[in-house]
């Protein structure tokens, strides 16, 4: 409905930016024009720099996410299904997740260096936390009435796990994976920023910043935002599919 209204602000901002650079309102060498950013973007895309950096970032992101999500599902199941496991590990985990993730980076860099191993370790930690929380919650909060149905039909423990608890927890587990995907993307940028080495879209930003190239910085921000948005939309699409299947409880 009246979607054009949303375009007003960006267009005005872009226009003002263009005018400002056209008439030289700012003398600062940092002030770049929209055309310069566009030229940089075209150059980065055409020369292949972008694809190398983006490919390296995404590869890291996905491998970290895969490891973190896998471990997170396992730990979440232990916490959600076993009273013993929950007592044994739950409080420790809750304390651990309180510590700001980025505070671990200096320790990680000492233990694992500055290379890809350290980054992937950090990314998996970032993805792990939301997956564990939501998986455990989902499994714990299966509605009692549904479990009673399983009991009425004499379901074994295994049957009520696979046929009732897991499907009932699925939306929550999915939310955890979705959050994990977002978190690990944010952590990818953070890892490239704080564990400086190698290629990556975060390194593109640092290069731009170090050489006072605002055009490169703005382009890097644009790419990061776009990738985040794409991951977001992808996950939301899948979530909506799932919801349509489930309806409301």
């Amino acid at each position, binding site marked *: 409905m009246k979607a054009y209204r949303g375009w007003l602000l960006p267009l005005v901002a872009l226009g003002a930016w263009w005018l400002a650079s056209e008439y030289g309102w700012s003398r600062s060498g940092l002030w770049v024009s929209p055309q310069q950013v566009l030229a940089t973007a075209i150059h980065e895309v055409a020369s292949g720099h972008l694809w190398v950096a983006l490919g390296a970032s995404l590869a890291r992101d996905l491998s970290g996410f895969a490891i973190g999500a896998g471990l997170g599902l396992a730990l979440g199941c232990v916490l959600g299904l076993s009273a013993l496991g929950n007592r044994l590990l739950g409080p420790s985990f809750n304390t651990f997740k309180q510590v700001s993730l980025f505070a671990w980076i200096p320790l990680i860099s000492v233990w694992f260096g500055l290379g890809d191993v350290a980054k992937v370790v950090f990314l998996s930690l970032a993805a792990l936390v939301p997956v564990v929380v939501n998986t455990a919650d989902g499994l714990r909060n299966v509605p009692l009435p*549904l479990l*009673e*149905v399983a009991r*009425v*039909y004499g379901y*074994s423990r295994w049957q009520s796990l696979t046929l009732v608890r897991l499907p009932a927890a699925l939306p929550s587990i999915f939310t955890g994976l979705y959050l994990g995907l977002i978190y690990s993307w944010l952590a990818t940028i953070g890892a490239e920023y704080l564990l400086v080495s190698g290629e990556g879209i975060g390194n593109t930003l640092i290069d731009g910043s170090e050489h006072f190239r605002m055009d490169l910085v703005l382009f890097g921000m644009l790419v990061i935002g776009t990738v985040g948005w794409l991951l977001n939309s992808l996950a939301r699409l899948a979530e909506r599919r799932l919801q349509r*299947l489930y*309806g409301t409880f």
Partner: protein
Amino acid sequence: MQANSLVLDHVSKHFTQPNNGAALQVLDDIALNIAPGEFISIVGASGCGKSTLLRLILGLESEFEGQILLGGRAIRGTGLERGIVFQDHRLFPWLNVRDNIAVGLKNSPLASAAKQQVVREHLALVGLERFAEAYPHQISGGMAQRVAIARGLVNRPSVLLLDEPFGALDALTRARLQNELQRIWAQENITMVLVTHDVEEAVFLGDRVVVMQPNPGRIKRIVDVGLPHPRQRSDARLVALRDDVLGDFLDA
């Protein structure tokens, strides 16, 4: 003849109150013999323990005094020979109508082809063949309750327990489902125990109506309806009986 009769032999039930640990009696000395194929209605105000009684028969609660015998044997835990229809239909939201009905057959000894056949028959029995692929959130409350009835019947239980099955439905849907339940009962020839707070429903469906009163829950009296099925709602004798039973609650 008495092979599948359901006998409640002086059943009492106490709950331990979580706050002070004191025992609270919810059922006091319930004695009832239910003949095979009989339709029993249990009617009472909320809090009279009628739903608890049903959960005892179903086997969801195992701690009580007295005995519950089915076909001469004491029940232990839940069993496929006792089906249930809950007030909230309790269909699995992630399964379609057909698969929800099949939930009841998971542990049945039938071969898989036979299971499919049984599910098809029960879809037809409740008139939902066209909705086999629909998910619970896509169908109306009345349809969901019919699915729940079908799920309760797939194992051909000797007793079907109904816990206020139409309590959440609108009056018109409720009347239609009552007619349908009457037809299914006649067709399947199984024992049904219906718990309800709707006196008209109890009288319309039941061969006998058990009137319960609260604090602690006990049987006030048992009314023999003594009218042949299928019945007409407007039947003057039914109306008179309904007013009679309603009187039990208005006095108290």
